[in-house]
């Protein structure tokens, strides 16, 4: 029964990912007093793209078509790390958070290579900017997770979640607040949301992720979009699991899992509303202010690590 819940939550992360995107787009539209598209539109888009043919530039190599596949494969593997319904996941106790972060890096590496293989200026532009953002985001990402891991004395994500579940909800330490802040900032940067990247733009002055995928079409583009949706959903689920896991199923009977799913949806909804408000209220940062943004995240996460020595006493 435990393994069923594990597989179920991985499927929720993978199959529910486009829905998260759709809901956020709808919420943002409402905040801007537009009606917005249906929340199911990302699914329709993926199906439409999957039916089309792949357009490949004549100068590109096998890497161009391989990159989206490997990106998708590694992102699916990330989904097997994150606990959603109960304090366990397929790889949640076997693998640790370093593996999770580096699997994300694996996908990003190949996506950047694919972008460069297109042979146009936009791919290089996007890949170069992505290289800047991601190389600076890795340190706060890991340090934020290290802070939580030190408190829990565990390095596997399932163990960290289990430890947090045993704590009193009102007994939040400064470490948690700092780590959450830095990880939330990293989530914005890693998943290409405002104020680091604008997911709706196609203007070469501003785009990062969109620049990288500009030469892609058809099934390749579908895989890239789906993978980045999974990554986004996975990061949100990770934040929820690490900092607000209360309400997860403790047993594995059917109704407990169903309740946990409802609770998860509620928490995800709160986070999505928060995100769409932030995205509507904040202007995009100038490219060279992004390092400052990530510098703040790094400093906050370093403080979180330093404070663990006080919190443990």
């Amino acid at each position, binding site marked *: 029964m435990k393994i069923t819940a594990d597989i179920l939550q991985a499927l929720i992360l993978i199959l529910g990912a486009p829905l998260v995107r759709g809901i956020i787009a709808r919420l943002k539209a409402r905040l801007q007093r537009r009606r917005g598209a249906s929340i199911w539109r990302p699914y329709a888009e993926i199906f439409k793209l*999957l039916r089309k*043919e*792949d*357009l*490949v*530039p*004549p100068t590109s*190599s*096998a*890497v161009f*078509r391989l990159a989206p*596949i490997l990106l*998708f*494969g*590694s992102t699916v*593997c990330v989904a097997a790390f994150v606990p959603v319904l109960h304090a366990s996941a397929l*790889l949640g106790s*076997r*693998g640790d958070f*370093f*593996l999770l972060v*580096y699997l994300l*890096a694996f996908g*990003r*590496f190949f996506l*950047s*290579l694919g972008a*460069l*293989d*297109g*042979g*146009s*200026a936009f*791919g*290089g*532009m996007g*890949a*170069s900017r992505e*290289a*800047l953002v*991601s*190389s*600076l985001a*890795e*340190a*706060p990402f*890991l*340090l934020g997770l290290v*802070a939580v*891991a*030190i408190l829990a004395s565990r*390095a596997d994500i399932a163990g960290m979640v289990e430890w947090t579940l045993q704590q009193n909800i009102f007994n939040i330490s400064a470490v948690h607040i700092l780590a959450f802040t830095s990880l939330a900032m990293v989530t914005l940067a890693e998943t290409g949301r405002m104020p680091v990247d604008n997911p709706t733009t196609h203007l070469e002055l501003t785009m990062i992720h969109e620049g990288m995928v500009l*030469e892609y079409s058809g*099934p*390749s583009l579908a*895989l890239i979009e789906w993978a980045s949706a999974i990554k986004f959903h996975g990061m949100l689920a990770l934040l929820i699991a690490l900092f607000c896991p209360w309400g997860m199923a403790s047993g594995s009977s059917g109704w407990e899992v169903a309740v946990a799913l409802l609770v998860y949806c509620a928490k995800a909804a709160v986070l999505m509303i928060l995100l769409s408000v932030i995205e509507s209220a904040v202007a995009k940062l100038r490219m060279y202010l992004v*390092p400052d943004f990530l510098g703040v995240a790094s400093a906050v996460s*370093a403080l979180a*690590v330093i404070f*663990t020595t006080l919190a443990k006493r």
Partner: protein
Amino acid sequence: MLITLTGAAFVFLLSALGVFVPLILIAGRAKGARRLAIALILTASSAGGLVAVSGVLRQPAPLLDLSLVTPFSFSLAVDRLSAFFLLLVCAVAVPVTIFAVPYFDLHYSEQRRHWTWAFFSLFLLSMIVVVTASTGFAFLAGWELMTLVSAALILIEGDSPERRHNVFIYLLMMHVGAAAVAACFFLFLPYSHSLDFGAIRAASAAMPGGIRAAVFLSAFVGFGAKAGLIPLHLWLPRAHPIAPSPVSALMSGVMLKTAVYGFVRFGFDFLAGGPWWSGYLVLLAGAVSGLLGVLYAIAEHDLKRFLAYHSVENIGIIFLGLGTSLLFLAHHAALWAALALIAALLHTLNHALFKSLLFLGAGAVSHATHTVDLEELGGLQRRMPVTGTAFLIGCCSIAGLPLLNGFISEWLIFRSFLAGSSLTGTKAQIILPLMVGILALIGGLAAACFVKTFGAAFLGRPRSSGAEHAQEAPLGMGVGLWLLGAACVCIGIFPGVVLRPLVSLVQVLVPGAGVPEETLSIARVIPWIAAIVLGASGVVALLRSRKRITRTWACGLPELSSRMQYTSTAFSKPIRFVFAQVYRPDRKVERLPADQPYFPVSISYRSVRTTSYERALYRPFVELVVSLAHQVRRLQTGNIQVYLLYIFLALVSLLTLLRFQR
């Protein structure tokens, strides 16, 4: 003792590389002689691999004592640590030799080829002597031979004044390092009365703390110079790029590792951990080398110099592991010390594999296109897919991506940093977990570097006619590349193969250490992850089959040209902009004619990076030496009476000294 099979194999290895191959090459001028010599090198390296494997698996006895034929005691032995490094040397030597056969054939004249192979064989021999020496004399002899032969191999490639200058700097810094290494041995002498490793090990426990600290510091400086730790790395980006590619691969892949071997031998085997501050010192040096190495690398567009700077970075990562281990030893946490040492040693092996792969790849690229300038490459993956795919494996490994070997060792270092939070001292408890951030930054920047390099060299459109008409490398080069690539993938997916012997090796060096749980858990989980990633990729790869090749939209222009692509310099610009403080280039813009600044006929732009430590550290030192030399020159008058006076004065002073000693 020499009757055993491994003993015989070891003697064959030494005599083949040291005596037969050079003799055959110097005596015989025929093509057959060279073939025989190459075959001998290959069998000798394979035999060395067998000796090493049997040495790693069980603790063997001393192998070879040559003290009768040499003035000092000279003996070689293969204990577990030596066996591991012997394995590293031989594992890299075989593919590099296979690669070198077509490379040397195509690049050198008949006459030069013989000399190159003779030196190549001696170079391998010197590294094998260094890692298997069991007396100080043998070690220093091998150490010196290694420096001289590699310098000769660099000079065989050509001798322009610039090359000679770089070789001079290389020899100079190597000898400063060698002096420090010799000092380490001689500091032991008053206590051990012999340079035999066993005697040194026995004596070290009884030595006073001050002497132990001096030994540690001088080992750190001596081996740090050889390893290329910043600020002692000055020679590395000068010497490695100008050597022939197979030699660069050996220098970066193997020769630097002999310094790691020496440091582990002294720091862990002889001294069993340094003074309390040693861990912090090594961590600091590792962090600085790692960060600055990768930052200098990203600004490079010469492929081989780029790889040389990455050697500095990876040596930094290895020393991060060693420093962590020393810190744990100082806190008497044997299990964690063992984990960090395993991580450092594994990264040493991994770096040997992927760095020699990358240097060989650079050799194949320069063979095909006659350039290693990233601004003139591009589109090679379509033209040389065999080389390109092997190079991509190397790039992924060095960037520390999962499913490849670089990740395993970096992961182990991350976990040992994390374990630092369980120490009792507050200082270590804070510093070690924070090092996770440093290593993550190094890793992130390294990934950016290799996206840049692989993208600029192998993807997109060719930027020069050389790249456009590139042909796939000859079979031998491909085989050499793929042997190394396969090793990277194997260790990356089944790390247990090397982790198990490493655990038993480290248990000898760190007494009282158990088996770290992390080494077992990573070996269990990585095959699962590989299965999921590759399985999911395979499933979606089946989903899509139709593709249409079509021209990219060029914003209304008739056709995209290679000049519209991002170059390697353009790619790294944002990162160079953010870390501008590190580079501080001297820029010079000249407009001609000078009296018409608004309507220039030509504008020239020059940007030179003189690194800050060069300005702050080396120049004052060089100036001091030169001014001292000027002072000393006053003694040299050229007048014979004055020289006779010197001799007389020396005689008198010696006699007086002897008189007072009685």
